[in-house]
C-alpha cells in the first residue's frame, strides 16, 4: 500500500504508534485505517512480534464511515449470508449480479466497482467419502465461503485428494471464518461466527479429527484461534485454541504425508510451466511453501515461485469502488511477475487472489489441489500436455 499510495502512514504508525494515543483516549481516527489490506506482512516484519495487524483491525472496527459505505460493508462482512441467499436460486443471482444496470446501481448506491465480475454462485454438496473411513486418520474440510457457495466441486476434489493420500475426509458445514467481517470492521460478526464455528468443530477436534483448510485466509483465521476474538470467554477461548492447534493447511497435510513417504506419487508425466503465487495468508501461517514442493513432484512440471508480493484484492477490498485503483496498483508487481514468468497458467490457493490475477492478467488461475489431482489421471487422448488445462472448469475473467 505504501508503494502505491505514498501518503499511506504505514503499519508502524497506524498500529503501535497511534495505539498509544488511542489508549490514552486521544482522537486519532483516520481514513487510512481502511487501506490496511490485512495481509499480516507487518506481523512478519516486526522482529519483536508486536501484533500490529490486530491493533489496526481493532481500530478499523471503531472507524466511522459514511452511511453508504457502512451499508455496503455490512454486506461485505457477511459473505456467508450473501452465499446462502444467492444459492437459493443461483442462476437468477448470477444473472442479476452480472447485469449491467444492476452493476451500475450497485456502483451508485453501494459504491461497489462495476469493473469486476462477482464470482458465480453454485449450489452443490461435496460427495460423501468413498473409502468409508476404516482406521485412516480422519480429517474434516473447513470449506470456507468460496468452496461452500461458489466452488462446491472443489470441495469434492479436495476430499478425493485427501482420500487418495491416506485420510478419511469429509466436508464440514461451517460458517464463514470471519476474515471478511474483520476486514470490513465488524468485530461483533467476527465473534459470533467464531463462536458458531467453535460449536461445530470442538467436539470433532476433541475426538481426534484434524481440521483441514484449502483456503489460506480461513486457515490463518482458524490457526490464530479466530484472531483471539473468543479469548475472554474461558470455555470458548480454550476450545478455539484446541481447534487452532489441530488445523492444517491442505498442502501442509499432504507435505507431511510426502515427508513420511506416504504421498501417492503415481503422477502421470506431463509437460507445462506453472507460476505459483503464495497468498499473504499462506505466508503468515509459517508453514514454509508446501504447494511449491508438492507441485514440483509432478514429472514434467516446472514451477516458478513468483514471490512478487500481495495481489492487492484483499477479499472485498478490491470490490470497493474507492479502493479499486489502489487494489490494482498493489497487484501490478505480481501481474508483471506473472507475465515475465511465461507460464502456461497460474496457480494459487486463495479464491480472491485467483480472481485478482485473472482480472489483472487474463490468465487462467486455478487451485493447486486441482492440478495435483488432475496429475493422477492419465492424459486425455491425443492431448498430453494440455490435459490439466482442459479439464479445469473455465472461469469468467
Amino acid at each position: 500500500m505504501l508503494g502505491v499510495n505514498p501518503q499511506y502512514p504505514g503499519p508502524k504508525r497506524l498500529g503501535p504508534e497511534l495505539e498509544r494515543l488511542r489508549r490514552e483516549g486521544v482522537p486519532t481516527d483516520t481514513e487510512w485505517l481502511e487501506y490496511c489490506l490485512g495481509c499480516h506482512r507487518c506481523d512478519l516484519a516486526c522482529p519483536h512480534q508486536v501484533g500490529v495487524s490486530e491493533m489496526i483491525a481493532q481500530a478499523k472496527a471503531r472507524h466511522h464511515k459514511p452511511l453508504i459505505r457502512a451499508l455496503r460493508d455490512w454486506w461485505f462482512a457477511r459473505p456467508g449470508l450473501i452465499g446462502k441467499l444467492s444459492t437459493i436460486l443461483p442462476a437468477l443471482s448470477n444473472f442479476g449480479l452480472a447485469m449491467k444496470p444492476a452493476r451500475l446501481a450497485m456502483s451508485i448506491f453501494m459504491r461497489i466497482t462495476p469493473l469486476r465480475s462477482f464470482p458465480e454462485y453454485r449450489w452443490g454438496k461435496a460427495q460423501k467419502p468413498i473409502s468409508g473411513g476404516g482406521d485412516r486418520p480422519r480429517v474434516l474440510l473447513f470449506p470456507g465461503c468460496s468452496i461452500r457457495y461458489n466452488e462446491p466441486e472443489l470441495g469434492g476434489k479436495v476430499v478425493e485428494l485427501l482420500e487418495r493420500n491416506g485420510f478419511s475426509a469429509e466436508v464440514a458445514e461451517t460458517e464463514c471464518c470471519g476474515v471478511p467481517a474483520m476486514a470490513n470492521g465488524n468485530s461483533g460478526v467476527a465473534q459470533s461466527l467464531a463462536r458458531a464455528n467453535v460449536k461445530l468443530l470442538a467436539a470433532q477436534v476433541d475426538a481426534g479429527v484434524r481440521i483441514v483448510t484449502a483456503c489460506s485466509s480461513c486457515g490463518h483465521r482458524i490457526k490464530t484461534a479466530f484472531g483471539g476474538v473468543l479469548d475472554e470467554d474461558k470455555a470458548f477461548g480454550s476450545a478455539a485454541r484446541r481447534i487452532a492447534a489441530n488445523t492444517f493447511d491442505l498442502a501442509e497435510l499432504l507435505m507431511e504425508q510426502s515427508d513420511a513417504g506416504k504421498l501417492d506419487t503415481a503422477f502421470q508425466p506431463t509437460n507445462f510451466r506453472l507460476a505459483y503465487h503464495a497468498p499473504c495468508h499462506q505466508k503468515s501461517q509459517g508453514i514454509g511453501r508446501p504447494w511449491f514442493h508438492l507441485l514440483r513432484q509432478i514429472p514434467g512440471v516446472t514451477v516458478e515461485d513468483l514471490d512478487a508480493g500481495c495481489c492487492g484484492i484483499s477479499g472485498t477490498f478490491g470490490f470497493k469502488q474507492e479502493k479499486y485503483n489502489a487494489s490494482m496498483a498493489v497487484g501490478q508487481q505480481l501481474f508483471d511477475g506473472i507475465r515475465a514468468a511465461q507460464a502456461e497458467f497460474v496457480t494459487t490457493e486463495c479464491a480472491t487472489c485467483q480472481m485478482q490475477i485473472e482480472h489483472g492478467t487474463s490468465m487462467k488461475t486455478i487451485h493447486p489441489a486441482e492440478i495435483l489431482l488432475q496429475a493422477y489421471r492419465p492424459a486425455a487422448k491425443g492431448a498430453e500436455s494440455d490435459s490439466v488445462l482442459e479439464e479445469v472448469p473455465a472461469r469468467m475473467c
Partner: protein
Amino acid sequence: MQSKSFDVVVVGSGFAGLTAAAIAKRQGLRVALVSTGPGSIALGPGWLKAEPFGPSSDAAELSEAMAFFCELTRQAGCPVAGDVANPRPIPNYLGSCESVAFAPQRLWNAAGDDKASTVIVGIRGLSIFDESFMAERLNERAKAAGSPDAYTARQIALRRDFGIPATVLQIATCFDRDAAFRAELIEALRPAASGFRRILLPGILGLHSSDWLLAQLEAELGCSICEVPTLPPSILGLRLFHRLQSYLHSSGVEVFSGFPVHSLQVGKEMCIGVDVTAPGHPLTLHGESVVLATGRRSVPLLAEPIAGCDPLMRPLDATGAVMAQNLFLAGTLAHSAAGYRGDTMRILSGYRAGTFAVTTRGAYAS
C-alpha cells in the same frame, strides 16, 4: 524430498547467519534459513565499521571471510568492498564521520578524497535529514582540519506528495515500484547537482535496487551519488539485507522468515530439532547441523548459559562440556562466548560456524 529436514539449518539472518547459510549453500547442501525478522544488517547503516580484532581473530582468515562476503554481495547485486586494515571516514547524517572498513559503492562515494566540492541535497518534508546542519558541521570539520573540502546545502521539492513529515521508507518504496518517480527524482536533482561533481543524498534510493540500477541513475545525472544512511532501520541496511536474503532464496535456500524459534530440541548431545512458533502449532525443522546466529535473543534457547565455545564454535556449558555436537554458534552469541566483535567479526564467526557445520556434518549422527 523432505520439506522440513535439511543438511544445515541456520537460525538468524544477520551478518553471521547469512554468511553461514551462503557457505553451506556453496557446498550444494540443502539449507534452511530461519529468522524472526530482518537481522543486524537491516538495522545497520549498510556499511561495516572497522572494529578492533577480537581475541580469536586471525587476520588471514578474516580477509578470507571478508573476501567471501564481498563476493556474496557482488552476486546479490549489491557489491560491498573495502579493506579490513584500511578503514576510511564516511560522513553520517549528523555531519560527523565514521570509520568504515566495508561499504557499497554509493557509500564509498561520500568518502572520496578528490577535493571535489560537494552538494548535500535534502528533500522538503523529509525532516529526518537536515542538509544545512550536515553541511555546516562538515564545513566546520574541514576548516578545522585545514582541508579544502567544501559542502553546499540545497533542498529540492518532489512533485509527489508524501505528506509531512515524509519518511525515507515512503520514498524508497515509491522509488522501487515506480520508474516514473525515479525519472522525476533525477530531474529534480539535476538542477541541484549542477556545478558539482558529487551529490550527497539521504538514503532513499530503493529497498531493493541493484547496484546496476543505481549506477545507471548516476550516469544519467552525470555526477557521483552518495547516499547517507538515516536513523535505523536505514534504507541502505534494509537494501543490503533484502538483496542478500533474496539472492540466497533464489539460489535454493529455504527461507522461513517472520517467526521466532522458541526452542531447540537438544538430546544426547545433539540438536535434533528447531521449533519455530507459528500460528496454531509449531513448525519443527531438522538439520544435521544447526547454526545459531540469533544474537542475544537465542541465549534462552539453550537450557544452560553459554560459557564459551570450543575451537569448532560449539557452545560449552559451565563445566566446559560441549552442549551439542552438531550445534555451532555465530554472531553476537559467539561474541559473548569468544570475543567476536563488530560486523566484520560477525562475518568471520558466520564463516567459521558455517564451515564447521558443513565439514563435521554427519560425523556425529547417532
